[in-house]
């Protein structure tokens, strides 16, 4: 229950600073967003009894509504917040998947406790790690497409939300998504 505390006003300022190009603002934002996501996940868990019914969009939406002072909000802030959240979700997920895949290979004893069904199957964990690596490869040659994938696949965003964050058209998002997907698929299977 020790957590960085911040006011919505502070969060909003940081977000604004970051969207204005302040890289340090992001370093401050990330732990706040992460904490808020965890806190929300915690609450969802209590209501739903398990994580299956969680929807990241709902989670992120709620985090956003709670973290950001709506009166100070600029419409772009929301998109930026979503981008941060998507990045965060990807990081949390892949960290977990890596640990799981590592443990699976004999790197450590994994504790299986009461009623704890792993969030990921081993197969899924491996697939996600591979996908993350492939996505990093895509980012090196085509950053926009990699961000489309990150926002949509890891951030759970709609085509419209993705378009808003990346400031591109929805058609472009759709076309990028298809081509990035094909590229990733070929990387992984080929």
């Amino acid at each position, binding site marked *: 229950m020790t957590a960085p505390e911040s006011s919505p006003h502070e969060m909003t300022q940081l977000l604004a600073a970051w969207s204005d190009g302040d890289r340090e603002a992001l370093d401050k934002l990330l732990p706040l967003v992460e904490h808020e996501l965890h806190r929300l996940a915690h609450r*969802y868990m209590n209501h*739903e009894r398990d994580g*299956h019914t969680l929807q990241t969009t709902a989670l992120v939406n709620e985090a956003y509504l709670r973290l950001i002072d709506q009166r100070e909000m600029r419409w772009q802030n929301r998109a930026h917040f979503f981008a941060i959240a998507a990045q965060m*979700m990807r990081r949390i997920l892949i960290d977990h998947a890596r640990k799981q895949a590592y443990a699976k290979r004999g790197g450590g004893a994994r504790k299986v406790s009461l009623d704890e069904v792993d969030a990921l199957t081993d197969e899924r964990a491996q697939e996600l790690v591979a996908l993350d690596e492939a996505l990093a490869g895509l980012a090196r040659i085509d950053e926009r497409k990699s961000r489309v994938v990150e926002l949509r696949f890891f951030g*759970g965003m709609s085509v419209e939300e993705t378009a808003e964050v990346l400031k591109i058209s929805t058609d472009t998002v759709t076309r990028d998504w298809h081509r990035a997907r094909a590229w990733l698929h070929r990387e992984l299977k080929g």
Partner: protein
Amino acid sequence: MADMNRERWQEVDSIFEAALARPASERDAFLDEACAGDPDLRAEVDSLIASEATEDFMNDPAFTDAARVLVQNARHSLTGQTIGSYQILESLGAGGMGEVYLALHLRTNRKVALKLLPAAFMNDGQRVRRFQQEARTVLALNHPNIVTVYDIEQAGDTHLIATEVIEGETLRQRLSRGALDLAEALDVAIQIAGALAAAHEAGVVHRDIKPENVMLRPDGFVKVLDFGLAKLTEREQRETSSELPTRALVRTDAGMVIGTANYMSPEQARGQEVDARTDTFSFGIMFYEMLTGNMPFSGGTKSDVMAAILQNEPPPLARFLPKAPEALEWIVTKTLAKNRDERYQTAKELLTDLKRLKRRSDYQVEAARFGSTTSGDSGFVAPGSDTATNRTAAADPPAATAEATRTLSSAEYVISEIKRHKRGVMFTVAGIAFLVIAAIGIVIGIRYLRPTSLSQATNPFRQTKVAKLTTTGNASQAAISPDGKYVVHVTGGAGKQSLLLRHIATGSDKEIVAANGNDFSWLTFSRDGSYVLYSRVEAGIYPLFQVPVLGGTPQKLIADDVDTRVSFSPDGKRFAFMRGEPQKGETSLILANADGTHEQVLSKYKVSDFSGNWPFPSWAPDGQTIAVAHRTGNDRSTNVVTVRVADGQEKQITSQQWPNILALSWLADAQGLVITAGEPEATYQHQIWFVSYPSGEARKITSDANNYVGLSLTEDSSSLVTVQAEQAPNLWLAPNGDAARAKQITSSRGDGLAGVAFTPDGRIVYTSVAHGSRELWVVNTDGSGQKQLMSDAKAMAGPFVSPDGRYVVFSSARAGAPNIWRINIDGSNPKQLTTGTHDQTPSISPDSRWVFYTATESDKQRLRKVPIDGGESEQLTDYSSGGALVSPDGKQIACAYIDIAKKRWSIGVISIEGGPPIKTFEISPLQARFQWSYDGRAVLYTVTRDGVTNIWSQPIDGSPPKQVTDFKSDQIFRFDWSHDGKRLVLARGPVSSDVVLISNLR
């Protein structure tokens, strides 16, 4: 392609994009042109186009995974923190509600399972108080199947619930590996039902019964979690949905995984008030899932599931479990009734049915564990149970398959002096006595005794296992082969019996002797295991047969009567058995060669030496003695004695006494004997005992709810088979004897088994064994006003109410020997009316002045009468007779007597002054109970056919008998008509017997 650079990718990508923009049919032509001269480029784009067509790739977005990971991480985020009085050690996962941590109570250092309830759940003060009150109630129950709550605490905005730490897995986890087998499912279900019953009785409803709330410990204990906790969330969830804008989205998502809706009751689905019966429904869903691995009500969405719960009938269990016992289906159906009025009204009833089913089902349980997990059983019921003629394993001449007569009703005191055929019926009578004894059961609780002071050498029964071999309810007798691989048993109702050989390992049955209308008794294997020996009635004679173990032509070994099971000498060359000699009032212990020749009488006994016992011989392993059980002493208790083969000299080997002993058998190492013996409380329950030799110490092997009759051991004494016989009548009231209008008015099981009688003012006096011993009770005809009249009447039987309504008379051994007693109608002022050695079956003359009864001396059974106010008694008959009932006009007596000419018991009518029968009827009192009709024109008697008893009427004028009642199921054990002849009260219920294997004896 990892070496691809940005520029090359842009080239590839633009052609790829352009290709995708074209119809598939035009792509080849386009690419031929666009990639002309660059085959690598073409290959690159081709491979991307191929990949693009892969539809299912990345269709499952990772954000749901991420969300789950977040939740899991959140669970671990508290580790090491201190909340309230607790330090969080590790996450145990998400329990029924909220997350659960292993935590340390800082003051006591006790490890607890700590549940954190977010403030949102607890913001209704009244609700919290009610929850806390319930938690304290549950805490006070201290039930082994309810998780113990230590503490409820508030820390900031979080409420903490500390409970005992339970190792093991949830039932949900167990179910993820598939259905449970029947025995396992029943065991778990019984423990859950036990928890529910205890909580419900304390007024606490669980409200959220589901597999996540049931923990299975490795030691077999089941713990139900979170009693009453769901109450906290009932309203809160609605508040949450309005508070959170995204909530609705989550709720309406068609793809969402169904949560607790799966275990919802119809009333919960409708949003109605819940009560204890709600838990029963949820239990039923869970039980169904345990048994089949499938949900009884399913659907793709929460609302589909709820619709199914409200409207659909679950698929029959038989679809998944073709061999499911009918009773199981019955129980499940009753728990899942949509209308809660049609469900089990209490979890206790459910528990009782489950326990009974468990006893009837195949089970393999280590005795000690079984005992510890099912103690506290206090009744049994017969849901959809089979009916069968009641029989015992050891003691069952066919003539005795139905019921003891009124004459012979007081089971263990029955005496007869003439054999059942040829010269009489002695063994039949004794057999009937056993039937009654065996049949009258009450459940005291399954509790295998802990080892007592007996040494290890003489205490070989620590790891006993019990397994039911049959579940038909009509397997009546059994013997196990010397090698323990086969069990031969009798199956089928009277007149339809056949002999089956069960291969224990595979469970397969083979018929080795077919039914031919004649019934079997006295099964045993030859010493080498190659033959089965048995007695089978033929024209009133009980010859001994042997048949090859795998079937073949039976061979008659002894043409004369063989009235007990034969017991082989250690070398297998001779066997011992008993034969009644009724004309002499004697019974002989006879030795014969294994081929049936060269009979030799070893010793002779009076009939009364065995009354109530089968004189079941067992040849000792050293060959020197034969053990038998018979009565010694004036109180008619029974002991085990040895008879020396050389000279017939007897020696008592134990000081322990029993009301009766049904069967006995030496252990192979001569360290003792195993016996089945009646319970000292005379509840008619029989348990299996071990009697150490030569010390004579006696100790129970079984001490449970069942009634064990018969006994057969393997050669090495490692296993035995017995028969578990159950009989559990309740009182029913039938207006004018109309079966269709019959109503059950008591439910204690065992009610009226030893007698039922109307009072002149229309109440019903009856015997009850509901409290562990025989008692006398009274009840109104509508079931109200149940009241105990007398409790301390040992072996009470045959209550008869005086026509003037002042007294009840009955037989009881409350002062030593069984005698006739009188009490006031309110149960006060007990007075002993007779002082004979064995007096029973009292009845009272219409003028309420005389008590008629059956008096038994060493080898005689006679009718006598004594004034109701006490005084000298008079003998009325000088031939074997009993069970006198005076006609309504006071001029005649109906009684059972032995028709010497026909060599069997009949019912006769004699003068009120006594003397020989004036009229006789072809009714066997061994198979029937009888009574005068209220107008005195007929004798009413019971007839049992195919396991169903009905009452018939035999007019005194000799015209043909007529059937009076038309019941389609169950047996009638006792009946009485109201004094106005308008109402019939019946002690009526199902009967069953099954073969049980008890192994790991040594």
